[in-house]
C-alpha cells in the first residue's frame, strides 16, 4: 500500500467506527429508553403489554395492600385516573399514601402494572420532578404545597 492508501484506510476505518457507534446510539435511544406517563396519559397513549415505561403519580389513599411475602399492591393516581400497581421488594423509605412516586416496569396482560422499581421523592420538601410537573399540568398541584 502506498502512503496515501494507508492514510485513507485509517481515516475510513475511523469513520466506520464512529458511524457504527452513532448508529448503535440512535438504535439504543429508540429501543431502550423508557417513557414517563401519568395514569391519565395512558387513555390516549398506546402502551403495549410488555413495553417498558415509567408510571408516576400519587399513591392513592387506602389502596396499599401487603400480600404474600414482600409483594405489595397499590394504586397510582393523578386524581383523574388510577392504575393498579404490584411490586415485589422493599419500598423506599419515603413511600407513603398521597405522596409522589415513580414506578418503572411493564403492564401485564390483565392491565395491572408490574413494577420492578419504585422511586419516591428524595426528601420531605420535594416531589419527583416529573410527578410535580405532571400534576401541575393537570391542575392538581399547587406551588404552595411544596413547602
Amino acid at each position: 500500500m502506498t502512503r496515501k492508501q494507508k492514510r485513507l484506510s485509517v481515516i475510513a476505518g475511523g469513520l466506520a467506527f464512529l458511524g457504527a457507534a452513532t448508529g448503535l446510539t440512535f438504535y439504543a435511544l429508540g429501543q431502550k429508553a423508557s417513557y414517563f406517563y401519568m395514569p391519565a396519559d395512558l387513555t390516549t397513549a398506546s402502551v403495549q403489554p410488555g413495553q417498558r415505561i415509567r408510571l408516576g403519580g400519587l399513591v392513592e389513599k387506602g389502596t396499599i395492600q401487603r400480600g404474600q411475602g414482600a409483594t405489595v399492591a397499590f394504586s397510582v393516581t393523578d386524581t383523574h385516573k388510577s392504575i393498579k400497581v404490584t411490586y415485589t421488594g422493599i419500598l423506599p423509605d419515603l413511600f407513603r399514601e398521597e405522596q409522589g412516586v415513580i414506578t418503572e416496569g411493564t403492564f401485564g396482560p390483565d392491565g395491572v402494572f408490574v413494577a420492578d422499581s419504585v422511586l419516591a421523592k428524595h426528601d420531605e420538601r420535594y416531589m419527583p420532578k416529573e410527578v410535580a410537573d405532571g400534576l401541575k399540568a393537570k391542575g392538581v398541584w399547587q406551588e404552595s404545597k411544596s413547602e
Partner: protein
Amino acid sequence: MVETGHFALVLAFALSLVQMTVPLFGSRLNNQRLMAVGGPVAVTGFALTALSFAALASAYANSDFSVASVWENSHSLQPMIYKITGTWGNHEGSMLLWVLILTFFGALVAAFGSNLPATLRANVLAVQGSIGAAFFLFILATSNPFIRLNPAPIEGRDLNPVLQDLGLAIHPPLLYLGYVGFSICFSFSVAALIEGRIDASWARWVRPWTLVAWMFLTGGIAMGSYWAYYELGWGGFWFWDPVENASFMPWLAGTALLHSAIVMEKRSALKIWTLLLAILTFSLSLLGTFLVRSGVLTSVHAFATDPTRGVFILCILTLFIGGSLALFALRASRLTAGGLFHPISREGALVLNNLFLTTATATVLVGTLYPLALEALTGDKISVGAPFFDLTFGPLMLPLLAIVPFGPLLAWKRGDVFAASQRLMAAFAVALAAMLVAGLFIDGASVFAALGIGLAVWLVAGALTDLAVKSGVGSVAPAVMFRRFAGLPRSVFGTALAHLGLGLTLLGIVATLSFGTEKILSMRAGETVELSGHTLRFVGLYPAQGPNYSEDRGRFELIGADGNAAGEITSAKRFFPVRQMTTTESGIRTLWFSQLYLSLGDENKDGSVVVRLWWKPLVTLIWGGGLVMMAGAAMSLMDRRLRVGAPSRRRKQASAVAPATLP
C-alpha cells in the same frame, strides 16, 4: 466571624478580577512587573477563600442558626462530624468548597510554577482567575452562604439524613479536587492558545496536573459509588443516574487526556488534539457542575432549586466552553502540528485508546443530555438507564479493554504486534483458564460472565506481564532481574497498577452482576434463611436511640458451619424527627472480598419484617480496583520525568551514581 468570612469572600472576588486582568495585560505588553502580580494575588486569593470557608465551617460547628444556610442544613443535636461536613452538604457551602479548591490549584501553580516561562505562567493564572471570578460572582449573587436571619431561629432544620454519613466527609472533597483539578489543564490550554505556542514541555507540565485531577476524580467516583451502595439500601453500585454520568464523563475524557499527553510529551505529536481534550475535559466538569447544581435534575445532589442559579451557571458554561472553543478554532491552525506516525506503535495504540474513550464519552453525553433535550423540545419524558448504556457503552469498552495489555508492550515509533502477542501468551493462557473455570465450574454462569471474568483476568495478567517483561523475567539472571525491576521508572509501575486496578474493578463488576444472588422475604424473629451457602438467623427488632434519631435495629446472626453464631449483622430503620424522614441503614458483612448485604423493609401487620438480602461476590474489588488505580496515578506522579527540569538532574545523577548501586 461570619461577617469576616463574607468580607473575605468579597475580597477574594475582587482579587480574582485583578488576577484575571493584570497578568494578561502584562504578558501582552511583555511587562515583567505586571506579570509578576499573578502569583501573589493567586496565593492571597486562596488564603482569603480559605478564611471564608473556615468562617462558614465554624458557623456550622457552633450551630449559629442566625446564618440561613446553617439553619436550613444543621441541627444542634447532630454529632460534631456531621455538623462540620454539613458545611458542604448543601448548595451554598458546596459551591464555596468548589471555589476553595479552584483557588487552591491556582495557588499551587503560583507556588510551584517558578520554572515556567513567565508569560505562560501569567496567562495560566489569568485564565484560572477568570474561572474564579465567574464562580465568586455566582456565589455572591445567587448562592451566598453568609446571609443572616433576623430574628435568629432557636433550632435548625437538620441536615438531610441521607447525608449524615462519613461518606459526606470524603466523597465531595475528593470529587471536587478531581473536577476542579482539570481547570489547571484547561487554563494551560487556553494560555497556550493565547500565546499561540505549544511544545513538549507544555505536555510535561500538564501531565502531572492531569494525573492529580484524575487520581482524585477516580477516588471521588469510587467513594460516591460505595456510599450510594451502602447508604441507599438498594445494593447497587452504579445506576447510570445523570448525576453519576456527570462525574463519569470528565473521568473518561480525563483518562483519554492522560494518555494523549504521553504521546505529546514523548513524541511531540497529537498536540492540537491534546489541547482540545484538555478543554473538553474541563468543559465536561463544568457541565457536570451545571447539571448537578442547577436543579435541572432531581437527585440527592439537587439540594434546592432556584431558576436564577441554573441560568447563571448556564451563562458561565456557555462563556467558558464557547469562549475556549472559539479561541481554539481561531488559534489552533497557528500551532504546529506534530508528525505522523506508524499506526502499529505505542502512539498508535494510545490513539486507539483515545478514539474509544472519547466515543464512549460521547455516548454517555448523549444518554445524559438526550432526555433533557427531548423534554425541552417535545415535552416527552423519557429515562435512559442501564439498558441504553449496556448497548452503547458496553460494546465500546470491551474491545478497548481487550487491547489494553498490548499498549505498554508496543515500542514507540514502530511496534511489533507479533512480538507483543508472544510475550502476552502466558497472560492469555491464564485468562483463558480463568474463563473456562468460570464458565464450566460455576453454576449458572453465562457466556458473558465467563468472557467478562476472562477479560478481567487478562487485564490483571497483562499488567503483571508488562512489569515482568520490562524487568527481563526469563531472559536474565534473577539478580539482574530484581535490580532491573527496582530500577524501572515509577511511571511504568504507575501504568501497570492503573491497568491492574481496572482489571480488578471489572472482575468485581462481572462477579457481582453474574454470580450475585438475592432474596426478598418476610421473616419473623427466630427464623433462618439461607443464601449462597450462608445461613442467617433473624434475632429480632430492637429499638434504640441515636443523638438526633430513633431507630429500630434488626439483628441478624450469621450461623457458621458448626451451627453456632459466627457473627452479627445489623440493619436499621432510622427515623429523624426534625425532617420527619426515615432512612435505611444497610447491614453489611465483608467476607474476604465478598459481602453479605441486607436491608430491612417495612414491618407487616403480623409482626414479620420484609428483608432483602444479597450475596455479592468480590464486590469490594469494584472500589478496591479504584484505590489501586489511584495508587498507580500517585506512583506515576513520583516519576522524576514529570518534574520540570528533572531530566538534567537525572542525567547528572546518573553519571555521578552508577545505577547498580541503587537499591
